[in-house]
């Protein structure tokens, strides 16, 4: 076999053994730097609320396929769809309501409402789990209590916006399985995990560098 293209496991182990202190030192230093950086990062909390998808709640067909006219289920669904709820909650009207209610322009230290809404949009995630019939609303914030409050405020807005926009005659369309409660643990930074990952990454990078820089490879 051509030696330039192949390397044996014995050679790989030999390279590691010869450079082990360098590799381990680099990995350790990287982990320490990660720890310092992680400690300096602000804490973020994620609050989550779970709703029943309206389609699931009314026992109608779940969202139809994007295949359009060929889908035999098109038009089978009744009432308001989860995607409409998602669109409504992600609208400027909704974001503006939340931003004003919690004075987020001041909290996020933004000059205008437009930028505030952009940040809020980035920190709000709404997922539709078609296969389980759930809708999840997640809000990220530096304050756990505020994260939960914003999350629950979104839920309260679903019915409000429904009557304002006259989307459906049903008064209560939000069937809540779990309201958001203030998260006890921060979602980021995860210091130990970050350290472990950075240690392993630095190890792999340093090790591969020595393997590739060896004459035989």
């Amino acid at each position, binding site marked *: 076999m051509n030696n330039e293209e192949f390397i044996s496991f014995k050679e790989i182990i030999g390279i590691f053994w010869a450079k082990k202190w360098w590799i381990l030192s680099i990995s350790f230093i990287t982990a320490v730097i990660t720890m310092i950086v992680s400690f300096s990062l602000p804490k973020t909390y994620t609050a989550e609320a779970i709703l029943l998808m309206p389609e699931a709640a009314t026992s109608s067909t779940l969202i139809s396929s994007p295949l359009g006219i060929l889908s035999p289920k098109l038009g089978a669904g009744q009432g308001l769809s989860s995607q409409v709820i998602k669109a409504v909650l992600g609208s400027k009207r909704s974001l503006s309501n939340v931003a004003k209610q919690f004075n987020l322009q001041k909290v996020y230290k933004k000059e205008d409402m437009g930028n505030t809404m952009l940040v809020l949009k980035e920190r709000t995630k709404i997922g*539709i789990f078609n296969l389980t019939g759930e809708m999840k609303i997640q809000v990220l914030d530096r304050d756990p209590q505020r994260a939960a409050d914003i999350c629950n405020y979104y839920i309260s807005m679903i019915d409000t916006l429904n009557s304002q926009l006259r989307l459906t005659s049903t008064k209560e369309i939000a069937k809540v399985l779990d309201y958001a409660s203030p998260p006890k643990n921060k979602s980021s930074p995860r210091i130990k995990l970050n350290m472990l990952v950075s240690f392993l990454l630095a190890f792999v990078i340093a090790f591969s560098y020595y393997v590739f820089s060896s004459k035989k490879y």
Partner: protein
Amino acid sequence: MSFQVKSINKIVFLILIALCTGIFLPLLEFKYSISIIIFFLAIFIFVLLFSPIGVWKIIFAMLFLGPLLPYSYYFNKFMEPHFGGASPYFVITPTYMAFFLSVLLLVVFYKKKISVDFKLEKSLFIWILFIVYSFIISIRTATNLNATFYELVRMVIAAGISIIVYLLIDSKEKLKSALIIIGIVLLIESAIAFLQEFAILPRDLLFGETIGTSSIIYVAEIFRRPAGTLREPNTFAKLLSLFIPIFLILSVILKERKEKLFFFLVLTFSMLALFMTLGRSAIVGTILGSFLGFSLIGIFAKEHLPSKKFIISGVSVVVVLIAVIGGLLFQVLYLRFIVFGYLTVAGRVAQYQNALYTIKNHFLWGVGLNNYCYATVMEDISGIAATNPEFPVHNLYLLYFSETGLFGFMLFLSFIISVFIRGIKNLTLPDLDNFTLAVIVGGLGGFASILLQSLLGWGVRSITLFSLFFLLGLIVAGKNNGVQKIPQYTNNGIEEGISHSTK
């Protein structure tokens, strides 16, 4: 130091097989799992006790057949055969079984060769780096680390298959036998596809003809698309597209009549089966991959080509063949390529939107290997994930970028580039015979074909991954044959011993 199979090895091996099947049997999740086990066991007992053909051929055939054997896989409520056992549940597939048993056979019969010759090819080293990197990153980023682990197992096994293939095929004769084995299997697969096309055999060999009620299956049922033993026509088309360029180039440049006829037969059958699958990107990819193969020969190894007249006649036959098939299937192809092409564009564009949004939000580290489907449900900017949560983006590059981030994607690209650079470099080697040249060039053509298809699909993340790495093993094996052997490996009696035991 000659190598002979000792009877104690046979007994130990048989006990191991019995134990392993005893453990794996309850884990296998398809209806006729017992028949697969019996099939494998029958092969092994035959090999160990009566085999006149050699252990390496059995290992080789088993590794090639493993990914082709049908099995079922359940993704939540949907049955999706082409998910390939990646998530969310761990499924011991026939491929895993084939790999595991191959390793056992290697340890029993090729222990000395492994200890001397077991070397890692550079592109595979990069692939393993990619696997390790993706896993480490996923510890931090993945929503579902189990899914990452399952994909990691698949990727490791794919690399293992590649290593075993190039370790086994260390001479031109073995390479030739290997291609004949692949040719026979493709002939059988194509024959099954014809029978399925004309409704003599069911399209699903495990569960028979089934027509689902879901909208996606409803659309797919408009066309009758044979899948061979693979149960999924696109996967079957991808398998064919991987190997067709090799057989095309072999049937053009070989001079020996019997071989030429056989490879031409395989090519014809495979091309017909490919057209019957109606796999759009596979058909286009195969044609482009074959052109790449011919271009590579034209640029790097003109001296290996037969006369211009011969090439023109050979290529003319293929063009006429494609034209006849195209003419016969014109209406179906038109419907499939044009009408349904437009129909599925919207869905794919929506998936690309989601992938680009995910990449924008997770540019450096990604969302975790094999976690795309989980992550996009919460970041579903286009709404497609709510309607088809089980389908990732139909672009392999966007998929890897969004899952492993910038650095992971760069590693993946490095892997691809390293395969091509090494392949092309080896085309300039002296002492390269026609057969080996055809395998390297055709292999690169097949590789390019699947990479082109990956622009519009994510097939490499299915069972095709194993076939792709099998092909990579063949390309590397081809390189071995073109390189001068190092005396210490050929003169220490090991080669002689192995050739004696596996003649």
